[in-house]
């Protein structure tokens, strides 16, 4: 069993001539919580999506729990895995989106049980029982039968977190989970995330919530122009940034 949950070496992503990631080196240890911050367009979300292969990398090495995500190594080449093999690996990585992306035609409960039944082939009764517990845990036990359109943004995002947890992931990825929320709803989502941290979940969080990054993250990675410029514990990064770019970014937002 690998000590590292995420390991990235020289990860690059090009779309046409546009270089979005220009060699990202990044590690996340098991049980660690790391947030990715940086100006918009710096590649934070793209890198996060590379971790579960929703976005394909152009070159470099990227593994989760010691295994390559979308590829298989044969000799000196990485061969792309089949659709089903990639899907099976993604099933072990939870992801929470900026715009929630709850399935609109399903109730909160149906959203949570969908993947365990369809992907993991769990029995409906078991999946339902666990889903109810998860909804209870995010404080939405009473909203199990509501459709996403009947829930507030904060409630939708909490259901989305429960939906990801239902797959019992070993890693959770958060892509700006509070950016689409009204200010008064941000807190309830951050509370749920803090609960996960307390349970020892390994998490990578792209966020603009500097308070959250400072308070609960083990390390904060500052990204700019497709690279990780600086990565250190929050107290160091926020109080004594080593690079000029991190300093000017923090000066702008804090």
């Amino acid at each position, binding site marked *: 069993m690998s000590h590292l949950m995420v390991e990235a070496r020289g990860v690059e992503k090009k779309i046409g001539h546009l270089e979005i990631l220009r060699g990202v080196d990044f590690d996340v240890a098991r049980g660690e919580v790391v947030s990715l911050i940086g100006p918009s367009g710096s590649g934070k979300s793209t890198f996060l999506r590379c971790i579960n292969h929703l976005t394909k990398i152009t070159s470099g090495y990227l593994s989760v729990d010691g295994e390559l995500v979308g590829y298989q190594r044969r000799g000196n080449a990485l061969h792309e895995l089949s659709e089903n093999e990639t899907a099976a690996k993604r099933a072990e990585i939870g992801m929470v989106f900026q715009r929630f992306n709850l399935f609109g035609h399903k109730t909160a409960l149906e959203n949570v049980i969908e993947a365990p039944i369809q992907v993991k082939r769990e029995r409906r009764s078991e999946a339902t029982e666990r889903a109810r517990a998860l909804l209870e845990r995010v404080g939405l036990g009473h909203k199990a039968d509501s459709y996403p359109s009947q829930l507030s943004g904060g409630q939708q995002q909490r259901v989305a977190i429960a939906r990801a947890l239902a*797959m019992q992931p070993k890693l959770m990825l958060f892509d700006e989970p509070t950016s689409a929320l009204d200010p008064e709803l941000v807190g309830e989502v951050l509370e749920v995330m803090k609960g996960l941290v307390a349970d020892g979940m390994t998490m990578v969080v792209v966020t603009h919530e500097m308070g959250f990054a400072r308070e609960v993250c083990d390390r904060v990675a500052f990204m700019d122009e497709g690279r990780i410029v600086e990565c250190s514990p929050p107290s160091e990064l926020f109080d004594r940034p080593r690079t000029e770019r991190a300093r000017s970014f923090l000066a702008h937002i804090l």
Partner: protein
Amino acid sequence: MTIERELPDTERAPPELANLRIVPRNGRYRWIPIAIVIVLALMLLDGVVFNPRFEWGVVGSYLFTPTILQGLATTVWLTALCMSLGVLLGIVIAVMRMSPSRIVSGFARLYIWFFRGTPILVQLIFWYNLAALFPNLGLGIPFGPTLIEFRTNDIITPLAAAILGLALNEGAYMAEIVRAGISSVDEGQDEAARALGMPRLKSMRRIVLPQAMRFIIPPTGNETIGMLKMTSLVSVIALSDLLYSAQAIYSRTFETIPLLLVCCCWYLVLTSLLSVVQARIEAYYGRGATPVGTNQGDRT
């Protein structure tokens, strides 16, 4: 926070103004359109319903004759079969059309281009006369040996030609409807499904298509009603549908108008039933689509 300002009472609206009654705009000329509609309805009643030349008695006497009812049955099942095949074909072609492979999507484009671009009547006659082009139909390797072979005329009966022609044509139209429906579903839905470990096709079947149905059903209702009436074209290849049965009778009795009215009555009954079915299906796929409770303004 309120800002208290000292204003003299003369500048404030007097309190009794809050008690003013609100009177809705009264439509003084409302009766004009109503009168026009009533006059038109009376004209229709006088000119059509009480017009002896329409021979409603004859219409009534043929409404349930066995020939007509058999034709009606043919029309109904031909519509159901061709429409089902057309929908399935449409889904396949739509998914192919959206494939990242240019060859696959190019094939789908070509299919749609051809079957939407040529008249259905010509297509039907073409399938009916397939034997003239390919006397034998077989499975084999192109330019190589043939494995199985049939005489075309044994397979392509008038019925098979009708089903083939109508379904293939419908598939092209349905493909575009399905594609429009799929593209109207937010990409985040497919992304979330795949992040949870669903392969592309499962995400399509479980997550994207059910939500696309909301956009697919209304035009499909149109298509079904269109198909119901399009089946009357098969009378040209001697298949006894509703219209053909009516024609068979009036060519003997010369009661042309009453028998065409019999057809119209049945087509209207069928389209009315279809509208009811469509409304039910729409309600089913619309679940979760209309916000009932509060929404915090974060839906786009």
